[in-house]
């Protein structure tokens, strides 16, 4: 007689692993089934080119919930986050903008661009910090269901109300603005320097099919501002070994608590009997029984692929069908023979921080224009990091790896994605880089290009959306993935969801995994 697991988790992404670790820690017998040969999902490090470790998809960490780091003792399992100290933007006129973690240096630099902005910048950060502090408790909370509230929901709504009431009028007003405005409109109220606005606004477009002038992007900006390391907000860091090492740390904790983690085990279907999940069937035909089945995949796969949609209430199936993905980003990883030279970079130390190809708001908005009409950006916005300059173990001595997050690359490309289109897209990225860092092309030893189509094929991300669905206002909190089903449950009994398509959403947060585990443990008490 085959074993019966307390919980089978589909997908070994960092959220599935987090959920597994929490369940195993509570004494549950847990099995994780991962389709690929390697754990981590979109948080994965691989040596695609020998000797060079790419942080294949995600590259920076800061949204990872501190309570998870503590509960699972992740540093013991290899979590090591190195701070990133600077952001550098080369401009088209040969000038640049460089922000440093040291406020005085940043101030001096900003004064070159605008003395007014130099004053406004710390105030802006303080305001965003305050907003982050105001919204932060929501991230650690299971969303209440305002549609048909139970006792618990009422308690949570009350808590939320109390929390909102505690905010002063000005904070509340700023919060409302953030919730509704475009990143650029919001920033216009603060700054006059265009390049500073461009740099700040990119936090509002990452992972969305929106431009810096699209309403709603101000909120996404806040989402990225909520990164919290060591109790200090907005500190982004790089995990030693790439983000795969974050997944491995969580996997280490899960294993230590007794969870079984299986790779090369794609799940074909959730087995449902009498409206109740009882196990899963693998693509190999193997069947595994479980008291609880948890999906760490995005809502489309969770509901429309792994189960027969006839098992779902029609209204629900429609809502899930309407959930927006609209993948808009791609990723290029390079192995380099040496460090590139950015024409306008005043200090080589800036190579160790973020390098942002967003010389102006117009540049980024134009990149979006291409995508709006089904083309990838000819001159895309690039979020560049050379991780080997802070973690020398990623490449042989003297050589480097470069991680380039690219926007925009629409999933629905005119004529569809093909190998040629992927190459052309890779060329557009490298050519744009070459404009600001002449000679970089000659340094390239190997290039990996991931279009949104590849992200869907290789990593199972629907339409290549990096967050398992856009983080727009209509798709967050108790609306994620859809009204009435934000509490990690599904219309099928004993079938739960724990991926980024649930609250508090995408990014390496572990939030969905942890909160889902807590709901599962609570309901099976």
């Amino acid at each position, binding site marked *: 007689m085959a074993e019966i697991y307390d919980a089978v988790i589909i997908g070994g992404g960092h959220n599935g692993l987090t959920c597994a670790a929490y369940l195993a820690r509570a004494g549950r017998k847990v099995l994780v089934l991962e389709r690929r040969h390697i754990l981590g999902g979109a948080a994965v490090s691989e040596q695609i080119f020998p000797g060079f470790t790419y942080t294949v998809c995600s590259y920076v960490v800061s949204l990872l919930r*501190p309570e998870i*780091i*503590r509960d699972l003792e*992740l*540093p013991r399992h290899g*979590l*090591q986050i*190195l*701070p990133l*100290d600077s952001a550098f933007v080369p401009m088209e006129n040969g000038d640049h903008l460089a922000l440093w*973690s*040291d406020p*005085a*240096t940043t101030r001096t630099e900003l004064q070159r661009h605008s003395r007014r902005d130099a004053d406004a910048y710390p105030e802006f950060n303080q305001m965003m910090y305050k907003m982050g*502090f105001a919204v932060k408790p929501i991230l650690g909370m299971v969303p209440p269901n305002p549609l048909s509230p139970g006792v618990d929901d009422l308690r949570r709504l009350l808590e939320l109300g109390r929390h909102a009431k505690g905010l002063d009028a000005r904070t509340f007003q700023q919060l409302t603005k953030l919730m509704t405005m475009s990143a650029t409109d919001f920033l216009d109220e603060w700054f006059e320097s265009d390049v500073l606005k461009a740099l700040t606004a990119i936090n509002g477009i990452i992972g969305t099919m929106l431009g810096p002038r699209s309403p709603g992007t101000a909120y996404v900006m806040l989402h990225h501002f909520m990164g919290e390391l*060591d*109790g200090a907000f907005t500190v982004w860091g790089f995990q*030693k070994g790439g983000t795969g090492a974050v997944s491995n740390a969580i996997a280490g904790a899960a294993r230590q608590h007794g969870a079984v983690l299986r790779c090369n085990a794609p799940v074909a279907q959730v087995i449902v009997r009498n409206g109740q999940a009882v196990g899963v069937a693998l693509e190999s035909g193997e069947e595994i029984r479980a008291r609880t089945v948890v999906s760490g995949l995005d809502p489309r796969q969770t509901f429309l692929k792994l189960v027969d949609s006839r098992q779902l209430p029609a209204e629900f199936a429609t809502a899930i069908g309407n959930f927006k993905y609209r993948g808009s980003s791609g990723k290029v990883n390079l192995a380099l023979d040496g460090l590139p030279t950015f024409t306008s970079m005043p200090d080589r130390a800036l190579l160790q921080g973020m390098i942002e190809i967003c010389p102006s708001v117009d540049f980024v908005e134009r990149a979006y224009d291409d995508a709006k009409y089904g083309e990838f950006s000819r001159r895309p916005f690039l979020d560049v990091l050379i991780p080997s*300059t*802070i*973690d*020398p*173990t990623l490449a042989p*001595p*003297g050589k480097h790896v470069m991680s380039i997050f690219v926007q925009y690359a629409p999933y629905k490309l005119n004529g569809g994605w093909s190998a040629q289109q992927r190459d052309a897209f890779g060329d557009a990225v490298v050519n744009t880089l070459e404009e600001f860092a002449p000679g970089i092309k000659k340094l390239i030893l190997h290039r990996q290009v991931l279009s949104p189509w590849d992200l869907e094929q290789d990593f199972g991300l629907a339409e290549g959306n990096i967050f398992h669905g856009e983080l727009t206002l209509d798709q967050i909190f108790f609306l994620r993935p859809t009204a009435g089903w934000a509490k990690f449950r599904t219309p099928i009994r004993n079938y739960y969801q724990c991926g980024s398509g649930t609250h508090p959403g995408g990014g390496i947060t572990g939030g969905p995994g942890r909160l889902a585990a807590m709901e599962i443990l609570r309901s099976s008490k």
Partner: protein
Amino acid sequence: MPRPSPFYSRTAALCESHSWQEWSGFLSANMYELHHLREYYAIRTAAALIDISPLYKYLVHGRDALKLLNRVMTRDIARCAVGQVLYTPWCDEHGRIIDDGTVTQLAPGRYRVTAADPSLRWFEDNATGLQVQIDDISDSLAALALQGPLAGEILQQAAGPALAQLKYFRHASAAIAGMDVSITRTGYTGDLGYELFADPADAERLWDALMEAGQPRLLRAAGQLALDMVRIEAGLLLVAVDFISSKKTVFDVQKSTPYELGLGWTVMLEKGNFVGRAALAAERERGAAWATVGLDVQWDSLEQIYKRYGMPIHLPETAWGNAVPVYSDEVQIGRATSGTWSPLLKKYVVLARIQPQYAKPGTPVCMEATVEAQRHMTAARVTALPFYNPPHKRA
């Protein structure tokens, strides 16, 4: 006026912060950049170069060298083979710690001793009647610590692949860029690391050679602030902070014994007579009055305290080293002596000296925490030391 160390021309050029402290009469960099965090991460994830020239160094040789060392030190120096290094404290006749350091047997009967404080007189006083020569070589040896997980790789690059064979707490002589260097696999970081001793005339060239070899592995200079954080993570006590040398105070209550400081393992009562042996034997019999432990400050508890002020937790960015009361059930049971936020472990880690009945790992205790100038008690858990002990330290 503090003196420049033999590496001063190099450290001064790098010291953007202009932040220095005095260390045994020398200028020692607190941090090189405006913030010490990158130096901290260099020690823990890549490698760092630290000027440790201000350490006191002695050469002990002659027929009775071993006899003298075994008379002074608590460990059994007879066990220190040629090419080996031992860490050891030394005590006064009441078994209270004067200082600690390392003993290296460089050649048969030739030992190098390092110390935090001047020790020539103490060694000489104990050498009465022995045929032994003690040379104060403090000024004739420049010293550098090369510490961090990539330190081995960098050292091999600079001094040749044979250094790969150098084991934990062993010594080797090597040549770096044609200069003679004496290398021990030791350090004050709890990481993989080496200490290098060389002629002060070679100091600058040695620094340059190491920096060049380490450049592709992101070697950087690190100062005292980063070092103070890592040594707490490593559970290593600092004299004048976590304890006071028995020579630096006239009050017994301020003195400590090896047993009280968690250094009981270094006391070899069986080896024969040594300074402080009788007192230490009696103490072992009756049990130490204090135990040195780690405290893991409970984040949730601290968070609750800050919440009352509507604030998130705010911790000092550097290690602290002043006595803070520790309680159990509102009764004081000892003191915390130093602490730091550990960016690597994501924990607030503290070294403390408490009554031994509370020393079992896992015991819940409380530590005083001052928030907005108001005193509170935060929960903490007793933990075994070190907090951080990576396998590559000994591998």
